[in-house]
């Protein structure tokens, strides 16, 4: 149905370089991340083409940001299926509203704002509390810790620690430490001042570091 040769290779080549872009007053200078799809087309060209209705170009953008969007949605919803639903809704919404996107602005904070809004909206609508409550499988394993591997203990610790964070803290720390977004980009995504983002990341890190301290050096 679609001629999308880039789909054969999911591995994306993402290069980052700092470009000065205007950001809201009071915010630190934002860095614009210039990403390239596997086909080698720069993000800006893909955005322009997609704005003109090029579905293949939008497909390359989706391929470029699918992983990030799904992980950020998971940081809000926890549940993988709900997170994927939210991420999918966000991409569809982005496609429909791409004409209104100001291409002088960086694309990925705009996209991530849609993802975050879709995820939080779904969270509110379904009143999902998976993140805030331990799954039954985890709770039952607490009874017999000897059966747990270090990795599963680590995973449970992380789940519990993440559950103790606010929604914004989870998003901020995931975007900053896991996805490599700058404070300014996260501020634009969450529509809060950069100082607030720093605070969110600080508190989230502190909580996560305390929870994961016993596993220092043990990467999953």
């Amino acid at each position, binding site marked *: *149905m*679609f001629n*999308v040769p880039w*789909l054969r290779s*999911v591995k994306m080549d993402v290069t980052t370089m700092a470009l000065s872009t205007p950001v809201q007053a009071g915010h630190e200078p934002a860095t614009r991340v210039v990403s390239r799809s596997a086909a080698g087309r720069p993000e800006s060209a893909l955005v322009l083409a997609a704005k003109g*209705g090029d*579905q293949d170009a*939008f*497909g390359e953008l*989706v*391929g470029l940001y*699918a*992983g990030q969007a*799904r*992980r950020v949605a*998971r*940081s809000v919803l926890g549940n*993988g299926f709900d997170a*994927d639903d939210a*991420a*999918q809704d966000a*991409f*569809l919404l982005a*496609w*429909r509203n*791409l*004409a209104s996107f100001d291409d002088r602005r960086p694309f990925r904070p705009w996209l991530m704002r849609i993802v975050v809004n879709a995820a939080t909206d779904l969270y509110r609508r379904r009143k999902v509390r998976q993140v805030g409550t331990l799954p039954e499988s985890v709770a039952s394993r607490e009874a017999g810790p000897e059966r747990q591997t270090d990795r599963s203990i*680590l*995973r449970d610790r*992380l*789940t519990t620690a*993440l559950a103790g964070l606010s929604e914004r803290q989870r998003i901020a*720390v*995931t975007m*900053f*430490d*896991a*996805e*490599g977004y700058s*404070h300014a980009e996260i501020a634009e995504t969450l529509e809060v001042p950069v100082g607030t983002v*720093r605070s969110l990341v*600080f508190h989230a*890190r*502190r909580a*996560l*570091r305390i929870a*994961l301290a016993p596993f*220092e050096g043990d*990467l*999953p």
Partner: protein
Amino acid sequence: MTASNDFDAGRDHDLGTRLRAHFETTDDAAFTARILSRIGGETRESSWDVLARWAPLGVAAAAILALAAGLGLGMAWNASTASAPDTADPVVWLSTGQPVTSEFVLTAALTEPGMSGEQR
């Protein structure tokens, strides 16, 4: 964690790796293909499409407005001409209270049928 200082502005790569693993996604290609199949089913409207859809309604509204404006202007014109006094008739002229010269009255009287002697 690589950075022990919570205020550190740099990234904590260990924490980032753990978070990425925690929120690990599988089969991004299938996810992408699913989105593309959804997008393929819908056609996105351009601004011209929207304009074209509203054009007939806009033209009809403009025509109605033009008609209403024309009617209004016509009625206003009629009203202004109807209210103007017939200055050729000395009786009407006198009723306006304006000063009348004898030449005007004489001229008006002479133009009255039967006063100029043409009846014979």
